[in-house]
Every structure is written in structure tokens, then in C-alpha cells.
């Protein structure tokens, strides 16, 4: 029980393909762990209570709010952040390429959450309609209101990804 009563725990997880081990406070969110302990500041924090969607990351392939998950809950999980989406340092993921081409980001604050949310969605729905894309990003706030280019970029990326590119 002494272990159960502690306010800090050891957490082991794989982040963007690299094994990580750290002692973290149990109240530290996964978002703060990624940003502050691992220096992966691509994951953005807007509201810290699950509304804005900026902090969305992939945990075992599922898009989740990293502000609504404790770092200690990532024990044994594989986490992918925006830094881990591209296949290598010189190649963008097709979704990132389409975002750049369609100017689907202006200030870029919402972009990491948009990309991670859409990545899981496109796995489950490889040929979405524009309406389905609008609904799936309804939980990701873009204050530049750049939704139209985001939808256009996603439609194009989906086609590229279906083609095996």
C-alpha cells in the first residue's frame, strides 16, 4: 500500500518510437509530461479542460485529449505526437503535405490537434465526405477560422493515402 499512497509514480511508455521512463507526479497530465519533461512542445495546450482539441495526441493509435489523461495512465502505451507523424526528418506525412499545399494552417496553434485527430479518423474512414470531416474536427477549435482549407487538405490527403502514396 505504501506505493499506492505516493504522489509520484514511475511511468514507462514509448513516445514517437523512443522508450521513455520517468518519475512523474500523478497529477501531471500527459500533455505536461510531453511538453515539460520530454520537451515535445509541438503538442499545444489551449484550454486544459478538453474543449479546444489542440493537445490531441495518439495513444495506441487512438486520438485522445492529452490534457484529459494523466501521464501515469500512459504506462505501457505508445504515444504519437505531431513530432512523430512524419516518416523521417525530410519527408512530411501526406496529411502534412496537403495542409501545407492548401494553406490549412495560419497561426498553427490548432494544427497538431487537427492532424492527430484526422489521422485516426482517416484510418477508420479512408474515403470521408467533406461533411464527415467537418463533424470530426468539430472538437478542434481553429481561431483563424481556417476550416475550409483544412477540409480541402483532408480530402486530398485521404485520396493520396488511399492510393498508397
Amino acid at each position, binding site marked *: 500500500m505504501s506505493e*499506492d*499512497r*505516493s*504522489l509520484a*509514480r514511475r511511468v514507462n511508455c514509448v513516445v514517437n518510437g523512443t522508450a521513455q521512463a520517468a518519475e512523474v507526479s*500523478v*497529477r501531471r*497530465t500527459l500533455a*505536461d509530461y510531453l511538453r515539460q519533461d520530454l520537451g515535445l512542445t509541438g503538442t499545444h495546450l489551449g484550454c*486544459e*479542460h*478538453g*474543449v479546444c*482539441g489542440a493537445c*490531441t495526441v495518439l495513444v495506441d493509435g*487512438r*486520438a*485522445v*485529449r492529452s*490534457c*484529459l*489523461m*494523466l501521464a*501515469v*495512465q500512459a504506462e505501457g502505451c505508445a504515444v504519437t505526437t505531431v513530432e512523430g507523424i512524419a516518416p523521417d526528418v525530410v519527408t512530411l506525412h501526406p496529411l502534412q503535405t496537403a495542409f501545407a499545399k492548401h494553406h490549412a494552417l495560419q497561426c498553427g496553434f490548432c494544427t497538431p490537434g487537427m492532424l*492527430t*485527430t484526422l489521422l*485516426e*479518423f482517416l484510418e*477508420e474512414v479512408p474515403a470521408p465526405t467533406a461533411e464527415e470531416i*467537418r*463533424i*470530426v474536427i*468539430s*472538437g*478542434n477549435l481553429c481561431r483563424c477560422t481556417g476550416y475550409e482549407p483544412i477540409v480541402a487538405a483532408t480530402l486530398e490527403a485521404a485520396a493520396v493515402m488511399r492510393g498508397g502514396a
Partner: protein
Amino acid sequence: MKAPPFEWHRPATLAEAVASLAAVAPQDGRVLAGGQSLLPAMALRVARPPHLVDINGIAELGELRVEDNALRIGALVRHAAFHRPVAHGPLGALMAGVVRHIAHWPIRTRGSFGGSLCHADPASEWPLVAVVLGATMQAVSLRGDRLIDGPAFLRGPLETALAPDEILRAVTLPLLPADAHWGFEEVARRAGDFAQAMALVVLRMDAIGRVAEARIGIGGVEAVPRRLAAVEALVNGRLPSATLVEEAGRAAAAACDPMEDAPYRRALVRAVVSRALASAAMPQALAA
């Protein structure tokens, strides 16, 4: 903001979780399921449980299966599990239709069916489903298991029949017969936002197309979701028609007792009940 300090307990089995909760419940210890309501409440400091019993490591709570003509949903089954039908027939389709209204995709991957029921937000969809479909909740504590039916489980906004040391283990929903028709309608200001009013209608028809058995419930308006007996009585035995749909909406508006914005909420109840009944009873007529 960040959550205030707490002690975190991570039981590996349900028996350990029950023991752990029994130990911390007297100090306002809480169960942490998907965390999509509790963690934001803690970040906003409106909830300050000094102990969290995290049930995410308990495999049996994530089980979903059909047995004895019912769907048994482990308390920790995530909303996203219902994106595709989990059972043959109308029940799987109904759940897949309703789940799209629950928050947003990355909330549904983590938020849980049982957590939604235990949180008992009047604007939540699963409590309405539980009441209309006749769900049975299975709760467990050191005193053993007990079964609680939907209406008895939901006591008020954010209030359930669970004792502080009880954990919701599973929820059982009877399968719907193959000839059941359903309709669900919700009004929310934005996609994924809290419902302002919703209605779930489940019908069975007789051989000549009259309504043999209607179940009509509303949520998001009163303190807890509720079946409207007066509206069900009005619809039973009638042939579906535009007139009946209109009458049912009006009767529902008169029968409900909104917590706030009464005239507006009544207007919404009228609309969602009419639409849900129409989509259950005569989808072809709606399309025409």
C-alpha cells in the same frame, strides 16, 4: 489550470478496486473511469477528490458481449466502441446512431459508457438510452453485487443511487426485437455540445401498421431522463400519421417540466419528440 493534488490508486482487478474504494470513500475518494468529465472538473477545481481509484487497468470492465438476449456493456467500454453496430438488429444501429451525438471523436475514444451513467449529467445521451430501453445496472462493493434499474439509478443531476463505496460494473440492455423501429433526435447549439433537448422513440407495430407498443423518452430538459407515459398512451393503438406526430409533440411539450428556459425547452421537446417519432414510424414519409 491543473488538478489539485490527489493520491492515485491503480488496482489491477475489480476486487482490488472495490477494496481500494472502500478504504478511500469515507474521505471522498472517487472512481476515475474515462476521465472526460472528472478530469476537467478537477482542472477547473470544481471537484477536489483527495483520492482517485483508477479503474482503467481492469480488463473485465472493458468487455462487451451479447448474452441471454441482452447486450452486456462493461462499465469502461468506451463510447467509440459503438461507432459501428455492436449487436445485430435495431439495438446496434440505435447505439451507433446515438453515439455520434456524444461530444467529439477524441472524447469518445476515452470517455466510457458506465462513466457517463455514473456522472448522470442530464444532457448526456446514454442515461436516456438506459431509461427508454430498460437497462439494468450492476453495482459492486464489499457488500456484494446488486442490480439497479435505470430510473432508480438516476436520482437527479449528477446524482445516482450508487453508494460512495460502490462501483458500476456493467450495464445490461435487452436486445430489441428485429421488427422494432427507433428514432433519436437531439438539439445542441454546436456539434458535440451539450444537448438542450433530445428524444428517443422505440416502436413496435401490429399486423395492420398500428403502433402496438411505444416507448418515448426525453432527456436534457428535466433533472433526469424520463419516459413520457401520457405520450406513449396517446400513440399506442394509432396509425402513424403527420397528425399523430404533431399531437405527440404537443403532448410531450405539455407533459415535460423543464429545469430552465421553460418556453424554449418545451418548444424543443415538441420538435425533437415529433421528429424522433416520425423517423421511427415513417422514415419513407419523411424522405418524401
